[in-house]
């Protein structure tokens, strides 16, 4: 029994077609709410975590332990004036933040979360090529960033967008190659290795242990995709004011802000699925989604620590690093995995 089937059980009086349509819609809304709540929780967690790392307390005035802080932020951002700079390119300027958010939300839907034993499977959609789809959806986000930077007619924003794109180009290929290694290893055991669920079922041992290089590469790529500090050239808080989002106000800025945190959550969820066994969990898969998020949150906290303690790499050095070190290493990873898979029959 999956969540969708249960919903259809409620709405089956509407007939097959309409019933499924309504159930899908409700499921989508539920997903949106849950993901939004998760993101709010993430940002709250980040602020508390950052505060504790810096021997501070963090927000603690609104609600118990400041738990309503993000709600207050949301209210404030909703009530903010939305400034559209007079020299903008109207359409891309308005669309760019939405692209970031839409790409993010859609990618979340495709991830298999496993099943909770009292609800059933809560995986939203199932696709035979979900791996490719997810990464295709994630690729929408940098386009949004580029559009934002170019369309706001601000020099800082332009420079930030160019940096962001240069950064994206240099880590995408290693990320894809490390993903290829995962798919390769899975293809020896399952027939549909491009499906996320079969990728999990193929992991007799977490791939993170079998592919230490791969998980390392993917972690770097994940942090870079989320543009966290060693790789936040696009934002460059101290150099380019606020990078590509310099001219954005209110909710539009909030979309970028959420996108930044959402990407790291998405990346960690992906990493936990691809390399750490996802919902199959160490002991029992009956609380699959909880396993996924425990793993994801640990990874998120690690990436927060990375964010807070490392300085920013210069963009040319990162491009250098990407092509001169990450790429060869990912090839080595691929070869090693090939040897493991074909030679040893793992």
């Amino acid at each position: 029994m999956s969540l969708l089937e249960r919903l259809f059980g409620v709405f089956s009086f509407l007939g097959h077609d309409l019933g499924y349509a309504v159930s899908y819609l409700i499921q989508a809304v539920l997903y949106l709410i849950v993901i939004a709540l998760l993101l709010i929780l993430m940002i709250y967690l980040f602020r508390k975590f950052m505060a504790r790392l810096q021997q501070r307390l963090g927000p603690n005035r609104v609600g118990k332990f400041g738990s309503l802080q993000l709600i207050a932020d949301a209210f404030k951002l909703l009530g903010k004036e939305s400034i559209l700079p007079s020299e903008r390119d109207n359409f891309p300027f308005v669309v760019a933040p939405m692209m970031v958010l839409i790409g993010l939300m859609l990618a979340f839907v495709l991830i298999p979360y496993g099943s909770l034993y009292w609800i059933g499977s809560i995986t939203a959609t199932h696709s035979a090529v979900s791996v490719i789809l997810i990464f295709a959806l994630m690729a929408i986000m940098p386009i949004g960033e580029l559009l934002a930077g170019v369309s706001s007619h601000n020099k800082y924003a332009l420079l930030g967008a160019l940096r962001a794109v240069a950064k994206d180009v240099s880590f995408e290929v290693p990320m894809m190659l490390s993903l290829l290694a995962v798919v390769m290893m899975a293809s020896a055991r399952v027939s549909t290795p491009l499906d996320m669920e079969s990728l999990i079922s193929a992991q007799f041992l977490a791939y993170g242990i079998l592919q230490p290089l791969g998980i390392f590469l993917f972690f770097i790529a994940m942090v870079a995709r989320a543009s966290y500090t060693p790789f936040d050239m696009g934002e460059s808080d101290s150099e380019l004011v606020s990078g590509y989002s310099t001219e954005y106000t209110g909710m539009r800025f909030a979309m970028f802000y959420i996108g930044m945190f959402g990407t790291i959550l998405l990346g960690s969820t992906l990493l936990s699925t691809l390399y750490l066994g996802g919902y199959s969990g160490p002991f029992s898969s009956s609380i699959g989604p909880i396993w996924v998020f425990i793993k994801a949150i640990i990874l998120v906290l690690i990436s927060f620590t990375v964010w807070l303690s490392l300085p920013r790499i210069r963009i040319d050095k990162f491009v250098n690093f990407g092509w001169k070190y990450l790429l060869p290493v990912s090839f080595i990873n691929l070869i090693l995995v090939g040897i493991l898979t074909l030679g040893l029959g793992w």
Partner: protein
Amino acid sequence: MIGVKEVEDPKKRVPLIGMIGGMATVGKHLFEKPVTVQYPEQRREMPERFRFRIFLKLDDCVGCTLCEQVCPNGSIKMQPVDRENPRNKRKIYPDVNFGTCTVCRNCQEICPTDAIYLTNVFETSRTRNSFTYSPEELALEEDKVKK
């Protein structure tokens, strides 16, 4: 003995190890106690020399105008106040403009009778730009100002 010491650059070491060590150092602070003093509820212990706002003892003021002279930017102006004080024949007392007062303490230092003095009351922010305190307001007891 003042010598000259050549400083050396940090040695080159294996990449990544140091970075992970740095992250561990940062992560270690997660388990340390926060140093925050939650201001409105808890107050830091103010050392006794801490000074912020000027107060005046009307009875001690002799109207010598030294504080007015020594104030670097004219925050202190002498005002006539109708008040019986045998020591203050001219009946002038200082008023202080906290909109310019730099808390330099020269007035306290120079006052021959210690009539003008600074205290540790610091909650003086206002929503309007009027910070000139008359001698009577300056003479208010500290507790009254603190609320």
